[in-house]
């Protein structure tokens, strides 16, 4: 019997609490929304990425796939030399530094005081 009463209480308080908490979250988000809109009307805020992706649908999917792979590779190679961000690409990037640096240094060694002369 006590179980049943507790069950009823669980039902009432439970649903009540769930509603209260979610209503509260609604309020919090609503405040943020208002701030967002105010800031948006003042200046241009970063829009949803979805808008950018929309025209994608017109490109054939296979071509899209190939482009995506290529771009991803490119992005990975160009960015990411900081250790801990994209570890896989650390080495090749370093190797490129080595290469560039060496070519440069070797040349500048031949005429080491070029600039100061």
């Amino acid at each position, binding site marked *: 019997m006590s*179980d*049943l009463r*507790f*069950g*009823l*209480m*669980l*039902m009432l*308080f*439970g*649903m009540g*609490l*769930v*509603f209260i*908490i*979610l*209503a*509260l*979250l*609604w309020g*919090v*988000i*609503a405040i*943020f*929304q208002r*701030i*967002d*809109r105010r*800031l*948006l009307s003042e200046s241009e*805020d*970063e*829009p*949803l990425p*979805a808008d950018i992706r929309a025209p994608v649908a017109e490109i054939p999917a296979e071509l899209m796939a190939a482009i995506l792979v290529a771009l991803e590779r490119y992005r990975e190679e160009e960015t990411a030399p900081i250790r801990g*961000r*994209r*570890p896989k690409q650390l080495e090749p990037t370093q190797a490129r530094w080595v290469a560039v640096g060496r070519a440069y240094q070797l040349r500048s060694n031949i005429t080491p005081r070029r600039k100061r002369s």
Partner: protein
Amino acid sequence: MDLLTTLFAGLNSLTWGATLMLAIGGGLIYLAIVKEYEPVLLLPIGAGAILANLPLSPLVGEDGLLGILYNAGVANELFPLLIFVGIGAMTDFGPLLERPHMLLLGAAGQFGIFGTLFLALLLGFDINEAASIGIIGAIDGPTSIYVSNLLAPHLLGPIAVVAYSYMSLVPIIQPPIMRALITKKERRIRMPYSENPVSRRTRVLFPILVTVVVGLLVPMAIPLIGMLMLGNLMKESGVVERLVGASSNEIANVVTLFLGLAIGATMQADAFLRKETLLILILGIFAFGLDTAAGLLFAKFLHWITRGPLNPLIGAAGISAFPMAARVVQKVAQEEDFENFLLMHAMGANTAGQIASVVAGGVVLALFAAR
């Protein structure tokens, strides 16, 4: 010969119960592979059930692999919480942030939890068992596992099986209820679509604030909501792609496999083959239906008081079961009006249901702790 007797001890100790459990394990694997019902969980659960019910299996018990997995991640709630990090890292709360009033529909979609709880009490389950069965109505696997493991660990097996296998039945359970409760005219309501761009700031602050607000009000919900929102924070931050990847891939996959096996191993004949399991199977359907009905009726009520363009069908998406429920809404709406596009609204209600499920799980635990 004595050696042979000992040797074939396995065959000798095969019971009818174990045989039935082997069949049930096979049945779950059938559902997973042929029907594709949540295969990533039902296949390991089925396999775990078979491996645990083979007579004299060294895999069960404290020192067996399945026992080790159980203690490593189920008994201490580690696995469901880690899965939540992955879910958070995969969920886009954008549609909800654009229409935050959808949160109320998410709340309504949890009524099945409490209704089923009460019904289970009436059917003779004790209060802890009843609450664990009710939590099937969260329609969210990890929440069901988390809560039932804390309140009634002996029912974990059937509850998890029901939670995951019924999840795939959402497209079968919901439409009749939707057609019964919502009139044709209401189903044709179109919802205007106004863009509410959501700033990155809001997207990043949202998981933090939800954690703090919910955490302050319902400390028992901190693990569930905190892990879900941790994953989402990492995703929206955009600066820790490595961790997002690890959470939603490596951790999620490995943990899912281990969790499934460990849960399957709890399905041992003497614990599983009882009339309680049968009742849970029935109460599970009831929970799903009650959730849907409550969501629909509450949406209908909102439509009535606001007199606004709110199609009550989207109430059905408040149950969580992301993203199946949202698609069911879109499908049923299109039956009446092919050009009616409710999906984005339904997605908002759907992610609201996800949050509400977790909050409800925490609320149930909190009420038990406060008892």
